[in-house]
């Protein structure tokens, strides 16, 4: 299958008081149509920034895309005009966020907020847009959608609001949906519901999904492929199965080892990534070597000299580590 979205050598820099922070460092990713790509990594590693870069919403200033390309069917979004990006956002690529409680505008009815999205991207009457909003609310499993469409955000629970966000994101039948930790702020039972909903909708519409999450259980269950990020780098990517059963990067191995009983009980007890010993280095103080070196039990002198590039270990699996062979052998 062909990639509909391909990110190449993307670099995002933030100017901060402490100096330049390279929030994304030459990351490359491919998203194939209809697949679910998982992105995992510790807090602050740049997952959200990757998503915002694709949307063209990197807060600027202080942030800026300083290098690389993001191509959507061959069209580079980094170079695209603002007008074109407005068409893309919500029309071709949609996004839902981590904070359902605050992501909806408190002074507008949720139906209007969904309908607005439709009106922005389709040549359609207001009444039809409203009808579409109600239809979308039905689709995401909101009871009494006609009534709920007239509600204001504060009248809905967190899970409901996230469903509204999903309804809004899918209202224009986008080709790509980016879900940035869509369940972090929700109750455990609601989390499972939202993941199931995304899964069902994906099957039904064939939308490609980039699923950013801490939830390895959800990754195991939903994602076709996984990219692992660390301090602004993608350090490993491959098929979910390969990553989970045969992780090659020391960091990924740490991650997977931290997750208890992944296979036994994948849905009920959804474990989070726990921390690996040590802390993520400050992005303003990254040295020239491997970003993971300060925490890596396998490091060798070269690791601190030069940054390892991400290289294929087989057709579908790539890793950025000098000592893969050694690591795997242990």
């Amino acid at each position: 299958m062909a990639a509909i979205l391909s990110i190449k050598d993307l670099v995002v820099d933030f100017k901060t008081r402490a100096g330049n922070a390279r929030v994304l460092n030459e990351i490359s990713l491919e998203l194939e149509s209809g697949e679910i790509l998982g992105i995992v990594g510790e807090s602050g590693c740049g997952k959200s920034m990757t998503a915002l870069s694709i949307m063209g919403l990197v807060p600027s200033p202080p942030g800026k895309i300083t290098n690389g390309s993001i191509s959507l069917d061959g069209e580079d979004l980094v170079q695209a005009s603002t007008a074109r990006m407005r068409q893309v956002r919500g029309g071709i690529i949609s996004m839902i966020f981590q904070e359902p409680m605050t992501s909806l505008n408190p002074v507008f009815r949720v139906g209007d907020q969904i309908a607005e999205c439709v009106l922005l991207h389709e040549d359609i009457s207001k009444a039809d847009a409203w009808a579409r909003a109600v239809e979308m609310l039905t689709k995401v499993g909101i009871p009494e959608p006609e009534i709920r469409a007239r509600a204001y955000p504060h009248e809905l629970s967190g899970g409901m609001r996230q469903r509204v966000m999903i309804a809004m994101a899918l209202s224009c039948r986008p080709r790509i949906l980016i879900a940035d930790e869509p369940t972090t702020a929700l109750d455990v039972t609601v989390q499972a519901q939202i993941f199931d909903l995304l899964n069902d909708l994906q099957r039904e519409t064939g939308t490609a999904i980039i699923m950013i999450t801490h939830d390895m259980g959800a990754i195991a269950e939903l994602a076709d492929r996984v990219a692992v990020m660390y301090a602004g780098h993608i350090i490993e990517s491959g098929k979910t199965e390969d990553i989970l059963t045969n992780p090659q990067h020391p960091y990924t191995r740490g991650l997977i080892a931290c997750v208890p009983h992944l296979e036994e009980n994948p849905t009920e007890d959804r474990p989070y990534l726990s921390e690996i010993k040590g802390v993520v280095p400050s992005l303003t103080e990254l040295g020239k070597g491997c970003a993971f070196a300060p925490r890596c039990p396998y490091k060798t002198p070269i690791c601190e000299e030069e940054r390892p590039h991400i290289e294929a270990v087989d057709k579908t699996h790539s890793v950025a580590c000098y000592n893969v062979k050694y690591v795997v052998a242990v």
Partner: protein
Amino acid sequence: MAVIESSQDIVQSQSPWREAARAFRQSWAGMLGIFILILVILFTFVGPFFYPVDPFEIIWAPLTPPGATERAPLGTDYLGRDILAGLIHGGPATLYVGLVAGIITITIGILVGAFAGFYRGMVDEFLMRITEFFQVLPALLFAMVLVTLFTPTIYVVSLAIGIVSWPTTARLTRAEFLRIRNLEYVNAARSIGAKNRRIIWRVILPNALAPLIVAATLTVGIAILFEAGLSFLGLGDPNMFSWGLMIGAGREYILDGWWVVTLPGFMIFLTVLGFSLVGDGLNDAFNPKLRER
């Protein structure tokens, strides 16, 4: 962002007051305000030594424009009295009214707000109803009535200003008390058996001080404006020489001589500007989060 800011926060959190003082020195508004206030104070308190002219004495032809004679560099008023002498001698009274009225305002406001916020329930309900009632009365008109009914001495004027201005402070104090009264250290004080009086004045109030200091600074400025407004309407203390008095007396002659009212008005503006800027600076200093804007 979180990572970088938190390290900054650690550096900053030694002593909040010292930190505020440092931030205040960095705020250009605050420093400009201090500078202006010092100028005004020097002008009115040291000025008489360098320019010993009686502001009541008639020294030249009435309504002489500024620069027309050396005897009255800033011109004369409608009676022929020296404007510059007036500006110099009018300051203390104006500042005095501002301070007294400001203190009255803040005192009433803090008392009402503290009791309402601390005791809540019926006390709060009652005090807030009174506050609301006072906010319904247009302050200047109410003060005008008070001053007219009683003799306009400097104290009546100050008291009138205080009586009409306290509600804002009361609301602010109440909000702070409501916020603080349930914090851990208040509960801790309560658990070791501290009396209510002690909790109000020794535990909560000191922690509510930052916004109240800002408010107090602004209140003095507002009180000075108030006094100026009353004087402009002819309701100032006629026996105290103040900028307000000059304004009130010159009001009918604005079209004959712009300087009679404009110049004392400018002094008042400058003084209030000083207080407002200091208030702004203090506000920035106490709220480091807002400083970025």
